């Protein structure tokens, strides 16, 4: 086919594609590629219109009329909801004075689960110590030297307040009192387990542990 163009096309019936019965566009031929004179598909046009309407409504609703909250407001609403939830479900209070290590299998298992989630990154999977001290020996940093005791109460305070200088953050926002009691019970149950590659002792040797 030669390089004809619309205005040179002889007047008359346009050429029809045999397979689809669609009309060719005269003069539209590029390296043998021709083009059909089909209209834009209706559904395609409507789809385009709908997305344009969506866009306008979206901009107006967020930025003019304020129908929907922007991200800062959304966050504030969520925070209020969670605060209300926490208020409605107060955590059981724990009497630190009378706290003792738990021994029930379920509590120790719950403690172990918490340990694996949180403590293991510094104190190693079997409590042998890594960046943080070893839990399996008799040496402790935060015990009570007067009574020669390291108790669950001493450890509870460490978890609540943290030891920022050493990289231990306070966990009072991440763990409930019960969870702390459970994980400390698990930690104390590791005494004398002799895991491989223990960290060298840190702190003072205590006789009364628990």
């Amino acid at each position, binding site marked *: 086919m030669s390089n004809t163009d*619309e205005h040179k096309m002889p007047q008359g019936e346009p050429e029809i594609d045999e397979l689809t019965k669609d009309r060719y566009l005269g003069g539209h031929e590029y*390296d043998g*590629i021709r083009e059909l004179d089909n209209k834009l*598909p209706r559904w395609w046009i409507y789809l385009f219109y709908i*997305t344009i309407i969506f866009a306008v409504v979206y901009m107006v609703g967020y930025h003019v009329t304020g129908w929907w909250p922007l991200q800062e407001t959304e966050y504030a609403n969520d925070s209020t909801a969670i605060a209300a939830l*926490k208020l409605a479900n107060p955590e059981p209070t724990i009497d630190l004075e009378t706290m003792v290590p738990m021994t029930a299998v379920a509590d120790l298992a719950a403690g172990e689960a918490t340990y694996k989630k949180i403590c293991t990154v510094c104190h190693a999977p079997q409590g042998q110590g*890594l960046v943080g001290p070893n839990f399996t020996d008799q040496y402790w940093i935060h015990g009570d030297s007067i009574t020669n005791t390291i108790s669950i109460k001493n450890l509870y305070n460490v978890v609540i307040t943290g030891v920022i200088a050493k990289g231990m953050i306070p966990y009072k926002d991440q763990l409930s009192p019960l969870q702390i009691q459970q994980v400390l019970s698990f930690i104390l149950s590791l005494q004398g387990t002799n895991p491989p590659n223990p960290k060298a002792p840190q702190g003072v040797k205590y006789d009364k542990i628990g």
Partner: protein
Amino acid sequence: MELQKFYYDNKIVKMFAYATIFWGVVGMLVGVLIALQMVLPAANFSLPFTSFGRVRPVHTNAVIFAFVGNGIFTGYYYSLQRLLKTGMASNWMTRIHFWGWQSIIVLAAVSLLAGFTTGKEYAELEWPIDILIAAIWVVFGWNMMWTILKRRTKHIYVAIWFFIATFVTVAVLHIVNSIEIPWSLFKSYPVYAGVQDALVQWWYGHNAVAFFLTTPYLGLMYYFMPKAANRPVYSYKLSILHFWALIFLYIWAGPHHLLYQALPNWAQSLGTVFSIMLIAPSWGGMINGLLTLRGAWDRVREEPVLKFFVVAVTAYGMSTFEGPMLSLKNINAISHFTNWTVAHVHIGALGWNGFLTFGMIYWLFPRMFGTKLYSNKLANLHFWLGTLAMLFYSIPMYWAGWTEASMWKQFTAAGDLVYPNYLEIVTQIMPMYWMRLFGGTLYFLGMFLLVYNIYKTVKAGSFIPLEAAEAPALEKEGARKSGESFHRFIERRPIQFMILAVVAVLIGGIIEIIPTFIIKSNIPTIATVKPYSPLELQGRDIYIKEGCYVCHSQMVRPFRSETERYGEYSKAGEYVYDHPFQWGSKRIGPDLWREGVKSGPLYKSNTWHYTHFMDPQKVNAQSIMPKYPWLAEKEIDVEATPAKIRVMQYLGVPYPEGYDLKANDDLKAQAETIAADLKTNGIDVAASKQVIALIAYIQRLGTDVGDSKTALK
């Protein structure tokens, strides 16, 4: 009228085609390697130039700019000459284009592995290479426009519209996003910081997808699909409307990469609505491609080339529907930073770009070598292998994405995170990473079927370097004729056409970017935000060099699930000294923006960081982070400190005057403190080592406002 004789240059097509195949193999091989590293951290080999943070950018750059890039030029040189009935205007410019482009790729691979990176995704190359890219791109475009002006056809076909739009837009994007001030022969800081850098970068990044992976490939589709099917294009009217709508709307969509982040709300919303409006224009291309096959569907069953094209165009349609959906806030809140995005981009890369390229190669080689394809059977096998590979790749990645998002966000009835330990989430999706490795490997293997098939085809045929053709010269035609539509008129006015395309793409960019520079309220100032100390700045450069941003974000979004896990959400004003921004796009590991906040949930001691950098698996057996032993051996580049400080001052970072010369004193003092702290914990490392700087930077992150949860309430 007298016929003129001329030749089509097939040699340049063949050169680019071989390069496409070669870089395809390389890019996919690197992809398989990094997929392996995700499941087997030992595959990082504890070496700087083989660790994930440096290798992943090689994969993305190789696939996008080397494999797809050469694919573009292969099809472009073949189709352009024939669509215009002329050889290329300048053959030596085509050779400069070819060798220039290949040297850019080699320089890119070498420099990225050596750690020279700007830290901006898909624009990682450093300033000397950026200049080379701009020069080579202009050579390519100049030669194209010159050839178009020398054409023997009156009008330019829709494929060429897409090539013109590609040329001008990529030039604008690349130049604007790469404006940077060098502080050494190979390193620079971008002029933009924080929010502005993020906006410019994703304006660029999204439109690299649009104008490098999409528009030129639509151009190729408009040539090779009707050629291979021997059918007319479905609708010229649709071509016009979807072309202009696509290029005008695409440029606005960049901010959808920054939803719920520290970007002004209005810019985010523009990103969302323009993405939604892109559905129809994108589908216009798909429809025009698929409906071109009407009357030829019976041949799709037989002809592997058409099969590849059908799946490619279908994948394009899926991606361009999914993309807008991912731009909706509520869906983005789930998908962003997860593997969902990874699945999404691979539908585009493996399906649309990969399959279109394969189909085109199977079609081109027999024609350039005057023979038939060696084996249709093998090509069919490649097709099925590739299709299966895509399923094995994408389904696990979608699954992984949803798993990650739900585990990040799940709260207990009491309002605590169910999975506070990030590692649990990483461990949970490990099986999906394995399946992805399997899928990726299948796709890679398919490439060898292609290599073998093409090798045999080439052996069987003989190359036709120049193809003779003839056509009459183009008659001069002036003003618009009566009855001639405006579009038909500018189709024979290529320069005007190009100018209109530039105007169409500039509008969106200007409206979105300029206001964040000139309207102060878009980035509210925070008085407590101070420039980085010299040691922290050095540490930040190491963070960028090692590609930490590839796996860690620095952007806490305003969700309860993120503020519980990481700390106070990010504010625009916190990032004003971040040249470049390091918000990241994927959380293979946790976000680090509040890592240094002592009262935050993530804080770790210097000792922990040191131990962790040296051997993450010692700290967490299931960690997939590479080891960084060289950080304890290599020295901080203190000689560069003054130059770095001076460039930062030039960019407006308020270091006191003359500080460039005193900076190293402060650097050493701060380094000594950290080294001394490590020493008290039994770690003996000199204060001059890189790890000290990196620890200083990590401990600084997010502390300007994050120290107290109430600081910004």
